[in-house]
């Protein structure tokens, strides 16, 4: 910098400023298209509320989620006959407060979503970049492996993986991440294939950029839009699959207040105590729905084809 003539350094500051305001404009444009979709905004509000509730669970929840009130087995919700306001949504078969368990359960579901997406997204991007950038035998091997994973129904594969690793929340998350990963690999690879021969990539290569820089710094940022949309889909899928595994007894183990596990414990009471079954399911549905609404909004905002229409 020191040896540069003043004119060039002035240009540089000017350029930096322009690029900052360009980023700002991009964000503003993104928010404009995202907020056009009312459902997406509603989804975002619900999702944010869930995050807050999950984060503040120890202060928000009326009771300890594991504490068994011995006098209050299967108390109905407060508006039903026999319900009390100290257990707003009633209690389960061993007298635990359902509302508190749901609030703590939000922590598990969001945690599952975040970890699974982080693992499968990072893994998928790295593998996809390598496949698309290297081509040849590496590409073929990777894509055949992904085809193999995709030939199994995801839940079945996750079930078998959990059976191998042993039932539990962490193993369920690993299994789900493995099962969701191929989608990211395919998307990244397809985007890389479309981008790798563009002029700006060739220019960067001619300018002497190394492989790693080309892959991660030059190409990757231009492939992000579909990956972000897929990541929200994976987030909701992860929550659904984890709940399904919990329901089948292969995910989080009782007495963890995970929503799917709660449903599985409640199954025998479906005809006698509807609230034990109904509320955990509503929690799952609302969470997944909120995330999918956000996903739809992201797709609208990031997909240039839709913007023009």
């Amino acid at each position: 910098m020191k040896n540069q003539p003043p004119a060039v350094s002035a240009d540089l500051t000017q350029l930096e400023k322009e690029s900052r305001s360009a980023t700002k404009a991009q964000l503003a444009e993104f928010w404009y298209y995202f907020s056009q979709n009312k459902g997406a905004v509603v989804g975002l509000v619900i999702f944010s509320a869930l995050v807050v509730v999950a984060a503040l669970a120890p202060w928000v929840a009326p009771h300890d989620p594991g504490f068994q009130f011995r006098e209050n087995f299967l108390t109905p919700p407060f508006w039903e006959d026999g319900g009390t306001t100290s257990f707003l949504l009633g209690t389960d078969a061993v007298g635990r407060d359902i509302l508190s368990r749901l609030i703590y359960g939000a922590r598990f579901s969001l945690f599952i979503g975040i970890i699974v997406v982080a693992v499968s997204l990072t893994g998928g991007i790295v593998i996809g970049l390598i496949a698309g950038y290297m081509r040849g035998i590496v590409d073929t091997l990777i894509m055949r492996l992904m085809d193999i994973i995709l030939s199994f129904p995801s839940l079945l594969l996750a079930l078998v993986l959990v059976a191998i690793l042993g039932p539990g929340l962490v193993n369920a998350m690993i299994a789900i991440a493995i099962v969701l990963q191929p989608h990211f690999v395919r998307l990244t690879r397809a985007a890389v294939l479309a981008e790798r021969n563009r002029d700006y990539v060739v220019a960067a290569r001619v300018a002497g950029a190394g492989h790693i820089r080309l892959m991660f710094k030059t190409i990757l940022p231009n492939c992000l839009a579909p990956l972000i949309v897929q990541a929200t889909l994976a987030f909701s899928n992860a929550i659904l699959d984890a709940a399904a595994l919990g329901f089948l007894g292969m995910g989080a183990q009782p007495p963890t207040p995970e929503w799917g596990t709660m449903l599985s414990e409640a199954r025998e009471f479906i005809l006698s105590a509807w609230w034990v079954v109904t509320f955990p399911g509503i929690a799952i549905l609302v969470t997944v729905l909120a995330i999918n609404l956000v996903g739809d909004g992201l797709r609208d905002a990031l997909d240039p084809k839709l913007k023009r229409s």
Partner: protein
Amino acid sequence: MLRFLLGRVGLLIPTFLGVTLVAFSFIRLLPGDPAELLAGERGISPERKAEVMEQLGFNKPYWQQYIDYVAGIFQGDLGVSFASKKPVLDEFLTLFPATAELALCAIIIAICLGIPAGIFAAVKRGSVADQAIMGTALVGYSMPIFWWGLLLIILFSGILQWTPVSGRISLLYFFPQVTGFMLIDSLLSGQKGAFLSAVQHLILPSIVLATIPLAVIARQTRSAMLEVLGEDYVRTARAKGLPPHQVVGLHALRNALIPVITTIGLQVGVLLAGAILTETIFSWPGIGKWLVDSISRRDYFVVQGGLLLIAGIIMVVNLIVDVLYGLVNPRIRHT
């Protein structure tokens, strides 16, 4: 066309071999001692264990086991279930019609409701009806179907008492399996009420299993229709003065259906995964429930064979969809 077909089949072979390798190695990674499981005795004596291991072929080196296994597959030998001592393939073939009947009913419901709903939403784009349909579709798409099944049981079996809770048909009826499809067999048996009972048992599980494919198909149909309705040839058709139903039904729908067909093909995997949950909730005696039970029992050969057969079905269906797609869309065929 033949080259296209051969190319697709050629791609399938390495994937299928990969699937056999996955199924083979997963089973050997499962914790637990197969000899103890097969013999059904704990603390089995070393001599007896060696005998059982030899009987299973587990004492040979892995590569030898794998070759024997693949050779067995081509002779229709997928091993024997530990629990029932019957060949895995026989068990699969006995149970598969139940799953097939359920899945077929579900996909028929999904197609018959999903495509018209999607068309309607696209034609009335932006209207209240469009928003209602798309909102419902998104709820369906986000549905934890195991909970949805429980809710329907509470409502229709518990409160209204319209439908039974589980099984394929009431125990009052007994007739030989001809096709394995309860709806057809009950009609063939000529017993009064048998068909009605079969329908009552089938309806809730089909609705549950149809939910996600229905939502996916409705969404896909709508977006495909919207894309096509903006094309020049649709405008030309309108300008020619053709009645709207003809423009939508003839010009637009035909082209919009191409991506929808692919989506329907992709639902096979969704249906089979959904069958695992649906069959568990409704105690439906199909392959989903069979596999879940076998996984928790560590019934090695059943899990191994089941994984292979299900992956095989999905691969074959995807191949058929690919070929159909190539038939309707020459652009794909020649690339």
